[in-house]
C-alpha cells in the first residue's frame, strides 16, 4: 500500500462548530480499499473523533450509506480505485445530520412502518403453522422477489429530489416494500396499505425522476415499484369512488 489518496470528509460536531466543515485526510489505498476501509483507517490511525455507521461490510446490513462526490453510495461496496483526485465523503443527503456521517433515519423508519410491511392474512382458512403452512410456487415468488431484496439502506431517499423537498413523501423503499407485500399471494392486506399509498404523499408525489433505481445497490428498482403502485392507487381510488 504505497499509494495514498487525499480524502475530504464532511464533519459536523455541533458542540464545536454550529456548521458542518470539510476535513482532509491522507489515506493509503490499493485495489481492494473501499470507502468504508478508508473511513476505518482514518478512525483507527488518524482521527478517532470521526463518527460513521457500518456493520456487515458486505452490502447486507445497509448501514454504511454516505454521499461520495454527491452520489449516494454504500461505503463498503464502493472502492477508492474508482475515483480520481476528488473524493468527497459526506452524510447521506435529505436526512438531518446528527454528527459527521451519522444521519437521523427516524422519518424513513416511520414511512416503512406506515405501509404495514408484513404479511396480513385474517382469513378463516389461513395456515396455522406446524405442518399447515403457506404454499408458494416459483412463479408466484417471481412476482415480488426483486422487491424483497431491499436492505433499507436509504440510498434511494438520498437520491430522490421529491423526498428532499418534502420528507412526508413515503419515498421509494417504503412504497417498494408495500408493493412487495401487495404482490405476495400469501398476503390479503392490500386494502389496508392502499389508503396510505393513494394519498398525495404516497405514490403521487413521485414524478419518475428514476435516480433511486440508478443508485440502489441491490438492483431493487424502486422506481418501477412506485409506478406499479400508481396503477394500483388509481384502481383503488376509482373503486372507492364507484362504491360511494
Amino acid at each position, binding site marked *: 500500500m504505497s499509494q495514498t489518496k487525499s480524502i475530504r470528509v464532511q464533519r459536523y460536531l455541533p458542540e464545536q462548530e454550529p456548521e458542518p466543515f470539510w476535513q482532509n485526510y491522507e489515506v493509503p489505498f490499493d485495489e481492494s480499499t473501499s470507502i468504508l476501509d478508508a473511513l476505518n483507517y482514518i478512525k483507527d490511525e488518524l482521527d478517532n473523533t470521526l463518527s460513521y455507521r457500518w456493520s456487515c461490510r458486505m452490502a447486507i446490513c445497509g448501514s454504511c450509506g454516505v454521499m461520495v462526490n454527491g452520489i449516494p453510495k454504500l461505503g463498503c461496496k464502493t472502492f477508492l480505485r474508482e475515483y480520481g483526485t476528488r473524493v468527497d465523503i459526506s452524510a447521506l443527503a435529505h436526512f438531518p445530520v446528527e454528527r459527521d456521517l451519522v444521519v437521523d433515519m427516524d422519518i424513513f423508519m416511520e414511512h416503512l412502518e406506515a405501509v404495514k410491511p408484513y404479511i396480513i392474512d385474517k382469513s378463516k382458512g389461513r395456515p396455522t403453522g406446524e405442518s399447515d403452512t403457506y404454499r408458494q410456487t416459483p412463479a408466484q415468488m417471481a412476482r415480488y422477489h426483486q422487491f424483497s431484496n431491499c436492505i433499507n439502506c436509504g440510498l434511494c431517499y438520498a437520491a430522490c429530489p421529491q423526498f428532499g423537498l418534502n420528507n412526508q413523501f413515503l419515498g421509494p423503499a417504503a412504497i417498494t416494500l408495500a408493493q412487495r407485500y401487495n404482490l405476495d399471494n400469501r398476503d390479503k392486506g392490500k386494502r389496508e396499505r392502499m389508503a396510505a399509498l393513494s394519498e398525495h404523499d404516497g405514490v403521487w408525489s413521485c414524478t419518475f425522476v428514476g435516480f433511486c433505481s440508478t443508485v440502489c445497490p441491490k438492483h431493487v*428498482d424502486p422506481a418501477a415499484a412506485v409506478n406499479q403502485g400508481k396503477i394500483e392507487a388509481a384502481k383503488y381510488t376509482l373503486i372507492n369512488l364507484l362504491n360511494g
Partner: protein
Amino acid sequence: MQKPASYRPSMSRRWWLQHQHFVLYMLREATVVPLVFFAGCMIAGLWALNSGAEAWVSWQAFMANPLVILINLLTLAASLFHAATFFPLMPRVMPIRIGAKTLPVNAIVGGMWAVVAIIAIALVAYFIWRA
C-alpha cells in the same frame, strides 16, 4: 428520549444541475412546452375549420410559416426524445409474465417502436395516396 442537535441540509435551487441524470429528467419534463404549442395549433385549426373558409385559409398560412414549421419540428424531436426515455420504463412498470419468466425488456421496447413506425408509415402513405 431527547433527540441530539442536528443539522438539516437544505436543497439548493440548482439541485438538478448536479448530476446528468437530473439534467436529462428536466429535459424530459421540458418536452411538454413545445407540445403545448402544438396542441394550441391543433385547437386553433379546429376552431378555424368551424369558423369558415377565411379563417381556415389564414390558419393554413400560419401553419406554413417557416418559424411555425421549425417549432413543430422541434415538437416532433421532443416527442421522440420523450418516447425514447419513456419506452424503456414500460416493461419495468408493467412487466409481462409468462409463467415464472418475464418477457425481455428489449422485446417490449422494440415492439413499441415497431408500433410507432407502423403508424408513421401508414400516415405518410395515406397522405401520399391522397395527394
